[in-house]
């Protein structure tokens, strides 16, 4: 196992920059998730760490030792990909034994190692079956088992769950998290699925256009997004984001005044801001004149499972709220209701989307 450090890691292809000078320190045994939309540089960074790409500049260190010059096979990393790469003509057992045989372990050692992963991954029922006869979840577990059986220093996972149907994916997430903590292997997992990142990560590295946007625990990214991109990308349903004008007594959304008891210090001056608030902090129990309360026309409502959502516009900008009280009357489309924004849960950004920091 190893700690990993990236110093100013940069990767260019011709004129385009895939990874733009990333600095990052990952602790020994940590589970880090690289999260971001397609093309953000997360996979390229992972491939640089694996030794599958040569960075244009910058250093990669394992346990403080530079590994840039080392070939992928000499870095002792294991990688698992989205598309499951087991040998179809070998049983799961033979697939897992393969990297061990290739390394010249004795038969006794191989048997012992296989027994170990069989237990850890609960694979006993599938060991003598062929990969294609297994459900995708079990197949991916077997691929993981093969990856870790040779005690890699670092485990690199490139969207390993995205080819798996949603209903198995949730189970796989829980399994993967549990396995990682049992194995204690330093792990980097790449995904565009923020739910996966929140569920798995000790820390999330959120990326966008080759840059690191924010690094932190899932809770830190969810509660305190550093900019609008982070605010929008993390959390589902997405945070409501809207243009507001700071006015005396509150915020203007078009012609509607959203009164605030006291303006937070950075907002004391008139000007334009972006307001962010998550749908669960927007309720239909407002009272006229109270802080955070404003009248709005309900435009749409729908249920997802037992969650009741309602939608309305203020100043031409859409908001979604979630009803928390389960037994109250449903929102009625076409009627006006007094909405309550939870003032303590409002987040503010500059017009170009940077978090407004309270002094």
């Amino acid at each position: 196992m190893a700690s990993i450090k990236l110093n100013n890691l940069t990767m260019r292809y011709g004129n385009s920059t895939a990874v733009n000078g990333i600095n990052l320190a990952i602790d020994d045994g940590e589970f880090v998730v690289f999260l971001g939309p397609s093309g953000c540089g997360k996979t390229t960074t992972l491939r640089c760490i694996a030794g599958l790409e040569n960075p244009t500049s910058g250093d990669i260190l394992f346990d403080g030792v530079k590994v840039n010059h080392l070939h992928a096979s000499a870095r002792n990393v294991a990688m698992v990909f989205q598309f499951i790469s087991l040998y179809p003509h070998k049983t799961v057992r033979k697939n897992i034994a393969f990297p061990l045989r290739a390394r010249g372990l004795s038969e006794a050692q191989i048997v012992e190692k296989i027994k170990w992963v069989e237990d850890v991954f609960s694979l006993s029922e599938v060991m003598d079956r062929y990969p294609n006869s297994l459900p995708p979840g079990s197949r991916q577990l077997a691929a993981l088992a093969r990856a870790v059986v040779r005690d890699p220093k670092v485990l690199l996972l490139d969207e390993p769950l995205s080819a798996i149907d949603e209903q198995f994916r949730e189970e796989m997430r829980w399994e993967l998290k549990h396995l990682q903590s049992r194995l204690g292997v330093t792990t980097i997992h790449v995904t565009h699925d923020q739910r996966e990142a929140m569920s798995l990560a000790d820390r999330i590295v959120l990326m966008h256009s080759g840059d690191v946007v924010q690094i932190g625990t899932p809770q830190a990214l969810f509660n305190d997004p550093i900019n609008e991109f982070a605010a929008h990308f993390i959390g589902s349903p997405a945070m409501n984001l809207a243009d507001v004008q700071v006015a005396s007594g509150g915020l203007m959304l078009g012609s509607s005044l959203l009164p605030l008891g006291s303006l937070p210090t950075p907002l004391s001056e008139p000007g334009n801001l972006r307001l962010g608030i998550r749908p669960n902090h927007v309720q239909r129990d407002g009272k006229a004149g109270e802080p955070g309360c404003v009248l709005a026309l309900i435009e749409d409502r729908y249920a997802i499972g037992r969650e009741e959502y309602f939608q309305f516009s203020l100043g031409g900008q859409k908001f979604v709220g979630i009803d928390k009280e389960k037994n109250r009357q449903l929102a009625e489309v076409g009627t006006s209701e007094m909405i309550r924004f939870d003032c303590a849960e409002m987040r503010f950004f500059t017009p170009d989307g940077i978090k407004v920091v309270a002094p």
Partner: protein
Amino acid sequence: MNAPRLSIVGLNKSFAHKHALTDISLDIHAGEILALLGPTGAGKTTTIRAIAGLESLSSGRVYLNGSEITQLSPTDRDVAVVFEGFNLLPTLSVYDNIAFPLRSTIYRETEEVISERVNKAADNLRISLLLSRKVNQLSGGERQRVAIARALVRRPTLYMFDEPLSALDLKLRESLVAELREMQRMNGATMLYATHDYGSAASLGHRIALIENGHILQVGTLSDLIATPRHIGVGRLIGSPAMVFFDVLNDKDMLSIEGLPWKWRFDTSLPAVAGITQGLILGIWPEDVELEFSPRTGFAQCEVHATDYRGLDRAIELRRGTNRVRKAIALAPAVQRGDSCWLGLPTSKIFAFNAQTGERVPGSLTLLESHE
């Protein structure tokens, strides 16, 4: 009453000797979005292709606005399909791609009409600024919008979407689902939307049709499906987490779950009860499972095996023996792996399913004892 916009009756399709579709019947009403939800390989694509006329059927009939179209060629059916792979023409501009169906020999609209419709569709999908770009310069999400816009301009009787968003980033998928919903609300289009993603189906579909192994398990609104699931597959496909299941030990009509302290009597009007109770599975929606963090009479002590932070809430997995229960709970109080908690199953919320067929077994449970 008007005929449904689309009606399919008894579709059957076999590839070699395998049944891809078995007796698929569905109605979609005008202005409705029907979500077709099922795992990969369930028959969603085959169903859509059959409606579009791209698949020959072993048997079955397809009606559009009450007229049978089973024998019509694909081009004579007034439906538009958006496939996962988009099928855009890479060398043409976005504008020409969207205009393409209107310029076909069937429609032959004037360039003036075409321009109006293309601009409106592009506006709807927020790709107006991309109209002069070549398709191969676009991102995946942009291409997807172009494909949807191309389907929109034709104003067909029925739109069909086959996993249109599954190749996209999750976040992009969420915003496109919201856009599709908004667009449909504005123009009242009728849609069949196939997906394996519960979240998309739940947020888009006015009703959901659940499909598994080429069979329709049940069709209904999400609240119908939750209130009266008719098949065990409904419990597997709906919810996040999905339904909690327990294998049942039975002694005549007495039911219990290995390792859990309750015993119920099961009364069913179905004949041959003894046969059925040989293999029953009990299911309960996670929202109906009760949980306490201190001991309570009638509750069973369990261990927290895993916790899953989800931002707004937390999902946890409880274990006791071989039983596993997954449920979303509030963020407070904080719980950790290894903590104890106490599980309660409200008897009236438990459903019974036939372990062999998966069918719901109607009947009522009565709690007899709870020895803990």
